[in-house]
């Protein structure tokens, strides 16, 4: 189906973009790669009067790493560029894995990590790893800029903490702590190329005795937003990852999930997969931490 009609706005500067956004509040949609936006528009799920494209704004596609401040991904950094970026591969291998697990070659050449986040799908591939890395999003409006921790960013399917006047300009990811590790696990049982039926990211920071000093989990596609699992995380702190601990962590995480049934999986299956993927993610994060 072809696209509905709209007016196209492609400002050169962020200031202009913010102005346009404020001027057309409620009737305008931001477009990054467009791989979510245009699909929804052609299905008539959105019919904005204006599309605000960020493609012409200079300096939005940066990917930079600084050993003191961490990783910065501009709003227009493409998934494919994140996958291939040497600093991402070296310091944030699970970010690269998640970006590579997103969609297809063509869509990764078009779509952005920021679009994946702002689209706020509960199954989004790039959210869980960023979430457990305590990333944040910089939101810019004509009135000023603010930093929103990812943990506070998602309000519901397709709903974010961004104000209608705000543009997300950058993702900031802290420097990986020594002794920490992350894992990203995804299951899409129908095909090797598919939206996740469940995805889980785990972050572990180990102490000298290989006990968990910090643990963070993010469970995707099992709730209205990607979910943190605070009870499981608390449970893990101070523990060594022995089989029975893993087992219990999996069960706890499954209990924290609130899945529904849809075309990809039933809620029962999803819940069970949370347990399994949590265990697998913890094991891998643990190994990563030991080697970091």
């Amino acid at each position, binding site marked *: *189906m*072809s*696209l*509905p*009609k*709209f*007016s*196209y706005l*492609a400002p050169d500067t962020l200031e202009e973009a913010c102005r346009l956004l404020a001027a057309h509040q409620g009737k305008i949609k931001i477009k990054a790669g*467009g*791989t979510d936006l*245009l*699909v929804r528009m*052609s*299905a008539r799920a959105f019919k904005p009067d204006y*599309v605000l*494209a960020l*493609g012409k704004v200079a300096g939005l596609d940066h990917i930079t790493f600084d050993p003191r401040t961490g990783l910065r991904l501009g709003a227009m950094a493409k998934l*494919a560029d994140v996958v291939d970026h040497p600093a991402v591969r070296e310091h944030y291998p699970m970010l690269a894995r998640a970006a590579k697990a997103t*969609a*297809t*070659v*063509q*869509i990764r*050449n*078009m779509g952005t990590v920021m679009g994946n986040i702002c689209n706020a799908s509960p199954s989004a591939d790039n959210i869980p790893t960023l979430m457990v890395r305590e990333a944040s999003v910089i939101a810019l409006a004509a009135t000023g800029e603010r930093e929103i921790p990812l943990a506070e960013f998602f309000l519901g399917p397709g709903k974010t903490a961004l104000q209608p006047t705000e543009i997300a300009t950058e993702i900031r990811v802290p420097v990986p702590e020594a002794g920490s590790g992350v894992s990203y696990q995804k299951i899409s049982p129908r095909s*090797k*190329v598919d939206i996740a039926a469940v995805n889980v990211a785990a972050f572990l920071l180990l102490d000298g005795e290989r006990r968990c000093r910090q643990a963070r989990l993010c469970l995707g596609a099992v709730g209205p937003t990607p979910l943190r699992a605070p009870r499981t995380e608390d449970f893990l702190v101070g523990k060594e990852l022995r089989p029975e601990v893993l087992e219990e962590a999996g069960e706890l995480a499954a209990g924290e999930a609130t899945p529904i049934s849809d075309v990809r999986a039933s809620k029962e299956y999803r819940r069970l997969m949370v347990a399994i993927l949590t265990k697998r993610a913890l094991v891998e994060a643990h190994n990563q931490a030991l080697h970091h």
Partner: protein
Amino acid sequence: MKTVITLNINGDRYEVAVNPWRTLNEVLREDLKLTGTKLGCGTGDCGACTVLVDGKSVSSCLTLAIELEGREITTIEGLAPNSEELHPIQESFINKGAIQCGYCTPGMIMSTAHLLKQNPRPTEAEIRAGLSGNLCRCTGYNKIVDAIKDAAEKMSSSSD
């Protein structure tokens, strides 16, 4: 309101007046009658519409034409210099039986062009991953994979 833009397609410059909601696929197929690029789904899932923009494979069904001013677009029509000399990828697809109904073929070939540019000697697994955005209902992909191996070999030995 239509905007007049200049598109650089296969080395030729085309001036077209487009509405902002026109996709590159519509402009190629309907306005410029470059119908080699196909439309299999319109939602980014099948890859039949794949073209190269600045050397990278994209779905023309999800690309707004208006955004392509100044970019270099390559479609299936732009691969072979003339009807005698085909691109080695095309030759391999023909000889290895990678083409049945042919509807996925232009997109498959463009994805292959992207893949071999990024990775001139891909492994079988890399080839299959490189086709993640291209569906084929006829061939079961195996002969396409064979064709890509064959093309990679020819192309990298000729550039050695």
